[in-house]
């Protein structure tokens, strides 16, 4: 039985904030295949393409036929616990602070035995549902959960180490003026977070203003303005647990048909420098608070265009600004990981908003992005492709990046 999570009380300002220790992070190159699966929320193992054997732990040759062709393959996630233990005296600091800790051996339906973290409602001899999760070191680990819904399942303390659940956390959404920002704020609040929403030029009216101000804390924030970001961080920096960078500054156009660079600079100001300002203002405090109890700093979320991964010429300079910010996110991911704070990147196709008015469907409802953010935080994923267009780009990038490049830049208007 998992006791429901209690809303944390006010912190004693005289107490030292617990520093984040990290679980063992060493993994082999092939072991990192599972990190790829975990980042995307897939349960996948190496599977021998010659003899069909699922292999675990990660190998460089099949233990049945010695084939070296062991691609990461989605695997059935069912299994049975065949032994378990409660580790009460771990050797490293991370687990020692969190002892006791339950682990078990799960015999997977697809073959291998897997040492796994156990959810509190999973016991020896029982069926479980396996997943690959990212632990606080950002590395893939196997996690066994009950096959059925159980009370307060997401409140399990071992599970919470793998997730960044919004419940009882405080979130900052950078842009409340857009439909996306408003949808994200509403979804986070519905998931149990207290939400702060940034607003630049607050005197300018906008649709949804009344609801936004009623439901959330609206705070002044212009991400392109370093001083504005610093001032907000001075007020709020120590209590933001989840930061959603939903900055959305989309202008159509490539390189040759526009004579001015201002529009391009604006995109970079918003997406690239906005990211830098936010990271420098809020990042250090978040990194310092990764182990700060129930409402520890937990995640930094970026909403990117999937064209950050492959330039889409009709929005060519915007794609470049997105790519710049994506690159920054990988840098930030490494730096925040030291504090146990994860960076979640969402890749979206065109949203159903005015700036993509001329783009044919399918287009993405802001609400769908908002739900995907909450799901990523609750499930602990790191790279999320939202909607059909993003998924299409992801698959084509894997299959043939050159073909994708040709497709994306052939119909420039």
């Amino acid at each position, binding site marked *: 039985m998992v006791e429901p999570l209690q809303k944390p009380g006010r912190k004693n300002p005289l107490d030292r904030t617990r520093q984040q220790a990290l679980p063992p992070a060493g993994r082999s190159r092939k072991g990192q295949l599972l990190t790829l699966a975990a980042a995307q929320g897939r349960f996948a193992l190496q599977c021998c393409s010659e003899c069909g054997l699922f292999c675990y732990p990660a190998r460089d040759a099949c233990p049945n036929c010695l084939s070296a062709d062991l691609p990461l393959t989605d695997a059935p996630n069912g299994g049975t616990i065949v*032994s378990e233990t409660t580790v009460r005296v771990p050797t490293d600091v991370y687990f020692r602070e969190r002892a006791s800790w339950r682990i078990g051996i799960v015999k997977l339906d697809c073959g291998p035995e897997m040492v796994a973290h156990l959810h509190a409602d999973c016991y020896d001899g029982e069926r479980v549902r396996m997943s690959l999760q990212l632990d606080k070191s950002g590395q893939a680990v196997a996690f066994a959960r009950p096959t059925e819904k159980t009370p307060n399942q997401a409140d399990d303390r071992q599970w919470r180490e793998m997730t960044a659940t919004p419940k009882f956390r405080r979130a900052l959404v950078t842009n409340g003026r857009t439909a996306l920002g408003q949808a994200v704020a509403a979804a986070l609040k519905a998931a149990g977070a207290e939400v702060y929403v940034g607003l630049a030029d607050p005197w300018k009216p906008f649709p949804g203003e009344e609801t936004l101000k009623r439901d959330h804390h609206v705070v002044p924030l212009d991400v392109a303005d370093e001083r504005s970001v610093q001032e907000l961080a001075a007020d709020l920096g120590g209590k933001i647990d989840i930061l959603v960078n939903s900055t959305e500054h989309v202008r159509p156009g490539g390189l040759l048909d526009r004579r001015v660079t201002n529009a391009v600079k604006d995109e970079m100001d918003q997406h690239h420098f906005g990211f830098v300002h936010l990271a420098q203002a809020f990042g250090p405090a978040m990194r310092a608070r990764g182990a700060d109890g129930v409402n520890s700093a937990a995640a930094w979320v970026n909403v990117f265009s999937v064209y950050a991964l492959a330039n889409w010429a009709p929005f060519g300079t915007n794609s470049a600004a997105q790519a710049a910010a994506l690159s920054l996110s990988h840098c930030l991911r490494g730096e925040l990981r030291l504090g146990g704070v994860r960076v979640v990147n969402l890749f979206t196709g065109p949203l159903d908003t005015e700036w993509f008015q001329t783009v044919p469907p399918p287009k993405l409802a802001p609400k769908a992005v908002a739900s995907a953010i909450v799901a990523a935080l609750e499930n602990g994923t790191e790279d999320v492709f939202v909607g059909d267009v993003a998924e299409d780009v992801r698959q084509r990038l894997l299959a043939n990046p050159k073909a994708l490049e040709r497709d994306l830049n052939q119909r420039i208007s």
Partner: protein
Amino acid sequence: MRTSRRASYDGVVVTTPVTIPYQRYSVESAHWWIGRALRGLVDASGISPRDIDGFCLSSFTVGPDTAIGLTQHFGLSVRWLDHIPLGGASAVAAFRRAARAVQAGDADIVACVAGDTNHVDSFRRTLENFSRFAADAAYPYGAGGANASFALIARHYMNRFGISREDFGRIAVSQRDNALRNPNALMKTPLTLEQYMAARPIADPIHLFDCVMPCAGAEAFLVMREEKAAAAKLKGARVLGTIERHNARLDDVVQNHGGWIADIDDLWGMAGAAPGDLDFVQTYDDYPVIVMMQLEDLGFCKKGEGAEFVRSHDLTIDGTFPHNTTGGQLSAGQAGAAGAYIGVTESIRQVLGTAGPTQVKDARLGLASGFGMINYDRGLSSGAMIIAGEG
């Protein structure tokens, strides 16, 4: 039934057992401990280091060096060299390699040494970097190291065969009795079954007295032809049969067997002996569950009857089944790879009648076994040897 055609180890003796008394923590390096053991071999045998022409080393903490680096470090010039990274199975394997080298004339006198240091943080580092599979797929789960791995094995084994903690406790308690007679044992106070049962849990069902204490120490022996030993006026023990097995093909989902089971008929067949003929047994005792598994897999009782065997025998030095007469690793301490050797050096002493306070009366024939390398979820290496006195 014996299935293979293994040549005997006739004409070879194992001699000069050396134990460098263990320390809980040491500021010295593994090299220092290995050096003390080599010097111990030289002092006890009267053989000059210049005449040692084979060297076999096992150590977890000697890195980045291996056996080759230590030849220069210790001024050894050898024509046969081996480094055996088999953890608890290293001693049996060392003897097997060295004996074949001596039989074939590739070396005349082989020094087999295992030694490790134990700095305040070196044990954790060993666990963290133990193997690729462990780093990928075991250590990140609670960082319990061997305790967690053996807890998973022990729990499954207890459930499968209806074994209680008291059954494991009998093994630990009897070994403590033995340790009280071993002046080099780190554990110097008696242990009762009540104390065993009341000990604090480490990783259920493993409790404190199921665990070995990591420490620094070294163990060593010499392998040579009988006539070499006679010329040096050294008493030597003979090995009548010996086996090793690595990554045995077993159907165990969780380890219920060690690799001994695959070769057990060869072991007894080579030795021309049966389990009932032995005067003592030194099993590899990183945890009592592995002792019980060995008693079954080595043929002292059937699978699943280990608990009954332990209940119906007295495992102390003067008992009906003298077992781990030094106190074993559970009570003497686990000096890294030297833990593989403790049962072998003690067996040599027992059959030569030089075990002193831990001597089993009239011991002529005994068994020493090894087990090692939890690479991921189970121990991969196993070995055993049947040792006899002179003549």
